[in-house]
């Protein structure tokens, strides 16, 4: 039985409420779904063992997805996100292994188990990975589970990666995923707040990956300044963010796609391409459309370039 088949039977048996979403997700792009799912689940199986990886990851996914939807329902009622302080999120979520390990294994699966995120996954592969220069030096901000960067490394044997995440769980989990993928010799993970990289030497990275961090910050523009600073002129970044999509640790409420575009333009980043996606099934009478946005950026060489 393939890992995809095993996933479908596990979900059918143990998480029937998640089956519809899984079917929607595979229908977006069956070949890509199978490719990514086999890869990601294969790494998870190496980390957790063949008998344990599905319960470990899919149970975490079900809880994570449920929490996200529940946050969205409370956001619909209250009109604002539940948290507004990074320090509180670090204390309650990022810094607590018992919370964060489940959270990260749950998020790990959203890359292909949330139908709208399949579009972001395709965008990343086709528009970012495939366009990297040779022997790229890549920085990943907030790798979390590590899946995005490790996938890039597995596709590009000439690439190296340095990842920075504020969460100790991330460093452990991303390292284990890299090890499982056989790329650990080309990656280094450091526990550090991405905003502290403001003081790093400028212009050393060929590319930056920064997925679903920006909405977790009180001052998201500081992150965009960091991305811009790290990149060489002409270097590219893959940036994603959430708009009117609540989660326990989402702080900054982006409402329109143009807000992210403008932030990038204000920090010497050309916006080459964007994609904005939303789930197919929404809460009844939803006021807010919970969106995920992906941006492909390029560091300007000058004002005119």
């Amino acid at each position, binding site marked *: 039985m393939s890992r995809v088949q095993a996933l479908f039977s596990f979900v*059918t048996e143990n*998480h*029937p*409420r*998640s*089956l*519809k*979403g899984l079917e929607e997700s595979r229908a977006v792009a069956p070949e890509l779904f199978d490719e990514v799912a086999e890869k990601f689940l294969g790494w998870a199986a190496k980390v957790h063992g063949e008998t344990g990886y599905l319960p470990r990851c899919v*149970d975490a996914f*079900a*809880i994570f*997805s*449920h*929490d996200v*939807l*529940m946050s*969205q*329902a409370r956001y619909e009622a209250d009109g604002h996100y539940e948290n507004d302080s990074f320090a509180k999120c670090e204390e309650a979520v990022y810094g607590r292994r018992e919370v964060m390990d489940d959270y990260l294994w749950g998020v790990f699966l959203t890359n292909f188990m949330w139908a709208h995120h399949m579009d972001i996954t395709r965008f990343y592969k086709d528009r970012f990975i495939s366009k990297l220069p040779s022997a790229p030096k890549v920085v990943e901000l907030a790798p979390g589970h590590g899946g995005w960067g490790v996938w890039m490394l597995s596709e590009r044997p000439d690439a190296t990666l340095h990842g920075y995440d504020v969460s100790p769980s991330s460093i452990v989990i991303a390292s284990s995923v890299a090890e499982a993928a056989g790329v650990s010799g080309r990656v280094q993970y450091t526990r550090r707040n991405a905003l502290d990289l403001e003081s790093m030497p400028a212009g050393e990275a060929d590319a930056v990956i920064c997925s679903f961090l920006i909405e977790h910050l009180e001052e998201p523009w500081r992150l965009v300044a960091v991305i811009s600073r790290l990149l060489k002129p002409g270097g590219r970044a893959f940036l994603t963010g959430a708009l009117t999509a609540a989660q*326990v640790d989402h702080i900054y409420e982006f409402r329109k796609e143009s807000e992210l575009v403008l932030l990038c333009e204000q920090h010497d980043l050309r916006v080459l391409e964007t994609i904005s996606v939303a789930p197919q*099934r*929404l*809460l*009844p009478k939803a006021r807010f459309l919970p969106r995920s946005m992906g941006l492909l950026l390029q560091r300007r060489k000058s004002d005119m370039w």
Partner: protein
Amino acid sequence: MDTLAKLNEVFRDVFEDEDLTVGRETTAKTVAGWDSVMHITLMMSIERAFKLRFNSGEVANLKNVGALADLIDRKKA
């Protein structure tokens, strides 16, 4: 009215099906339309009907209606 009977009313209301009857063994496999999004509507309606509030994690992996009824009874006790 006992918890299960009251829950049945909430289910009928949420799934807009006057003939729906749930028992302790009922799961999402046997109720058409009970997906992850509908589950949230159901939980919010239960919160209103029973005047309680679920914590994160409590209701994400409930196996069947019996487990849900037991959780409600524990929270109301």
